């Protein structure tokens, strides 16, 4: 069943259009930077961008920082929100279940397919950004964010890999919200928008002093902590909290999704 879901996801044109669009924004940013040579002042604008002009090796991390706040969560929420509700709306859910595909198995297969999509999207963004970056800006040993000693190529690759995994996990949190909502409603649009509403609420609360007590528990709180992977030495504090927070969110939400989906009447 997992293979069937992966095949369905990879065969859909929407998957590849979404990934292409995700790639377009960082590429556009790179081209604009390269042609105008106008980088943001250090400390302003998206992370890493000020340093990219002198070093294209840093562009994968910069590209992740560009798509992370909005583009990537939207893409993930669309795919995950569609997972169950899309089948319900098309009427194919009932035929899958009587084939029969167990409800738990179907949910797991959907989850795997969403995770695969997220990883493919993040990796494609990073790899494209690497080629675009090194091509447009040239490459140099990777400097660290805090201006310490430079990273060796092996270290740089490893840390970019870790960054990809961290961003992937953060997006899994988004996917879990959308998947849970997707088991409740028969409209994929409602599930996607619901998940995005959660993210927007979290972002708004983060900027609010009055919500300070909630801060450490907001799902988007540690998203940008992957920047700390490029410090020397790595600043683990926020990264560890970010991973722990996402793991709890993902665990609880998926459990709720499973509990709901395995006991609900499928009337679509």
């Amino acid at each position, binding site marked *: *069943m997992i*293979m*069937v879901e992966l*095949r*369905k996801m990879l*065969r*859909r*044109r929407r998957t590849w259009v979404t990934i292409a669009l995700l790639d377009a924004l960082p590429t556009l940013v790179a081209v604009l930077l390269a042609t105008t040579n106008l980088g943001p002042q250090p400390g302003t604008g998206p992370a890493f961008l000020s340093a990219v002009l002198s070093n294209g090796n840093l562009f994968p991390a910069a590209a992740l920082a560009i798509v992370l706040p909005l583009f990537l969560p939207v893409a993930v929420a669309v795919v995950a929100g569609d997972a169950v509700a899309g089948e319900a709306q*098309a*009427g*194919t859910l*009932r*035929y*899958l*279940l*009587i*084939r*029969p*595909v*167990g409800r738990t198995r179907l949910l797991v297969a959907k989850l795997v397919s969403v995770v695969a999509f997220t990883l493919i999207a993040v990796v494609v963004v990073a790899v494209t950004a690497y080629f675009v970056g090194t091509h447009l800006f040239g490459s140099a040993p990777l400097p660290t964010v805090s201006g310490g000693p430079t990273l060796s190529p092996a270290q740089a690759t490893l840390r970019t890999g870790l960054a990809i995994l961290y961003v992937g996990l953060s997006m899994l949190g988004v996917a879990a919200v959308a998947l849970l909502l997707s088991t409740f409603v028969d409209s994929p649009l409602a599930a996607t928008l619901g998940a995005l509403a959660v993210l927007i609420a979290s972002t708004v609360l983060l900027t609010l002093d009055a919500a300070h007590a909630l801060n450490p528990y907001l799902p988007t709180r540690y998203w940008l902590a992957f920047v700390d992977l490029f410090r020397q030495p790595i600043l683990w504090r926020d990264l560890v909290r970010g991973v722990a927070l996402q793991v709890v969110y993902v665990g609880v939400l998926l459990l709720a999704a499973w509990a709901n989906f395995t*006991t609900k*009447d*499928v*009337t679509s």
Partner: protein
Amino acid sequence: MSDSVILTRALTKRFGSLTAVDAVDLDVRPGDIYGFLGPNGSGKTTTVRMLLGLVLATSGSVELLGEPVPRRAKRALGRVGALVEGPAAYGDLSGRANLTLADAAGPGGPRPTRKRRVDEALERVGLSEVGRRPVKAYSLGMRQRLGLAAALLRRPELLVLDEPTNGLDPQGIHEVRALLIELNAAGTTVFLSSHLLAEVEQVCGRIGVLDEGRLVLQDDVAALRAPTGNTVVSTPDADRAVSLLDGRVAARDGDRLVVRGPEPADLNALLVGEGIRVTELILERRTLEEIVLGITGPGSDRVDGRAAR
């Protein structure tokens, strides 16, 4: 365990305060073509969904091919093919691709023979030359055929079909009917949910009738349609016949009389002996329509107050 293919006991489903299905005891036996009838909103679809484990019963039990549903539904469902409330498929993919995915999704279908199973199912429903067109370009009838093909994919022992001729032209309806009779002759039990009484009358050996969630009738069609004991006589000399038979005429419609009483042969002899010409003389049998309409109320889509009895 029982010999029945579908056996429900006091099957009940409540949605909030609405009782959609009320203590239904279905009994479908091997080899039946079972017609499941009832007005719109009488609970047919909810019942079918409970049989297949899609909707969970509030109380009561379902046994499908001897397995309790939903507890061990997976073991039974692999031997069941179903069409529930219209076909559904992935619109971007071709019919063949849809069937291939469906075959891969379920248990048991070995990969090397997958293409053969898909081809066979498409051929069965007359879609073998359909090519690579995506399903969204299919006509309603083609979609219906594709849905049937998906139901037939595993050579099921039991077919559960909800309005299988929906959207088909008379030719298509005839084909589906022939297909069902052929499959049944080869040993497939068919559970046919429909509100087309004529369709059910032509193929079904047993019927169950649902009205407002309750099973109000379950019997063999042959028994239901047994002669009523009356004889229908058509005669151009109707007035003379009425006065001759004196009180035994139960109903009269122009030249057509319904006569209570004697054997048709005796009645014929009596009439002819009196010089009354007879153009037609047959045993009265009730049609399925008369039977069903006699015991069911108006459907729930009628909202002028007459639905509330």
